[in-house]
């Protein structure tokens, strides 16, 4: 039954939302908003299922004594601690905000900082792995743009900040980015159409 039911629901709701977007007639536009709200609610409920999935994966890791299962234990303890605290104090409380601002935010900022180091290392490796013209162009442009944007102590490089960097960023990079984005937009359109036609079913069912 679900073999036909799921695609029928997916295709009909997809078409309604698409038509509601292009033809903003009273009832159609209203229906589109209602369906999108349902999707948001379902997506919220999915987070709960996702957390249960996360728990089950890590409980299994501890039970089967997998490698580095101490981290799984830490994850479960932190998750339960935050959950209990959130339920007692409320999700908008200052304790929850503090947890977010003093743990999650700095950790993510640190990861971003690690990314900078990782990228420098990857750029050095690039020439070793792929020693071609495009790699040389890529790295040269990166260096030129950095010289034009980085605040250097004591000196100010002429031309880089005033001429070369703006030319690269505003002309070459923007036109290239637009070209890539047109390709991405066409890919997105065709992927959406495949899903709407039911030939591509990311929701399962053959």
């Amino acid at each position, binding site marked *: 039954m679900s073999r036909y039911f799921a695609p029928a629901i997916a295709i009909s709701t997809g078409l309604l939302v*698409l038509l509601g*977007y*292009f*033809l*903003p007639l009273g009832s159609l536009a209203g229906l589109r908003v209602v369906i*999108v709200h349902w*999707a948001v609610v*379902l*997506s919220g409920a*999915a*987070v*709960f*299922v*996702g957390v249960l*999935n*996360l728990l*089950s*994966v890590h409980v*299994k890791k501890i039970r089967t004594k*997998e490698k580095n299962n101490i981290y799984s234990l830490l994850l479960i303890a932190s998750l339960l601690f935050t959950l209990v605290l959130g339920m007692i104090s409320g999700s908008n409380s200052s304790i929850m905000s503090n947890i977010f601002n003093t743990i*999650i935010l700095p*950790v993510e900022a640190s*990861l*971003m900082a*690690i*990314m900078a180091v*990782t*990228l420098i*290392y*990857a*750029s050095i*490796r*690039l020439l070793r792995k*792929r020693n071609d013209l495009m790699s040389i162009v*890529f790295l040269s442009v990166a260096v030129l743009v950095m010289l034009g944007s980085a605040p250097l102590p004591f000196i100010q490089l002429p031309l880089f900040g005033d001429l070369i960097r703006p030319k690269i960023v505003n002309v070459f990079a923007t036109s290239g980015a637009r*070209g*890539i*984005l*047109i*390709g*991405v937009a*066409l*890919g*997105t*359109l*065709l*992927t*959406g*159409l*495949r*899903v709407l*036609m039911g*030939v*591509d*079913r*990311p*929701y*399962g*069912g*053959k």
Partner: protein
Amino acid sequence: MPLPALAGLILVAFSAVLLIGLFLLKDRVKASFRKIPAFSKFNKSIGTAVENGTRIHFSLGSADIVRPRTAASFSAISVLRRIVEMAATSDAPPVATAGDASLAILSQDSLRTAYRAAGADQQYQADSGRVTGLTPFSYAAATLSTIYDEDISSHSIMGGFGAEVGLLTDATERNDSFTLAAADSLPAQAVLFASVEDPLIGEDLYVSGAYLNAGRAHMVSVFVQDTLRWLIVLVLLGGATMKLLAGLL
């Protein structure tokens, strides 16, 4: 109706007609794609993973299903389904990680369907499709443990990513495993260009189904994508010429 909306509607309708028309032409449309080495290397790495009994990892990104970036996730799920169908007999089940709960549920559904299609229902494990983190960086950080600890030899890092994708590709590189990587955002593509041997740039992410033989619809959609691209090129050139002529006259 406003002009941009009308133009959009015409583009969508034209693409749909072209897609359906070419799909119905069946074998009269012959496939001839440019060579993308990443896909042939990926196919080879899948074979090696099945032979060695190592795992295949699908990193699906953090794009949720209620935003325009969903298409990238859907493309990644198509790849997952196709590859799991091919590698269903492997001793080590493939693992899919997602940075969004709804995407993880879809990946579980696709894994189950792929195993069923391959006649290997008993191989399916519910924890093969999992959420590892709910923000882009927490997802990337938590996926690192999957990359390092789960005996993986082939990675498909495709979907909605930002610059955090660099953490994942750096880990796969250190692990000496093959990585097929593509993302929908420009910062992620720039990071991938620097960190992966054969990155997929731009619309390559959306043609992966055609290159991995996921079905006729994928092949036809590449034709439509190419046709539309040429049309857009002609429109842009026409517009530029007209503007130039208007300036000269």
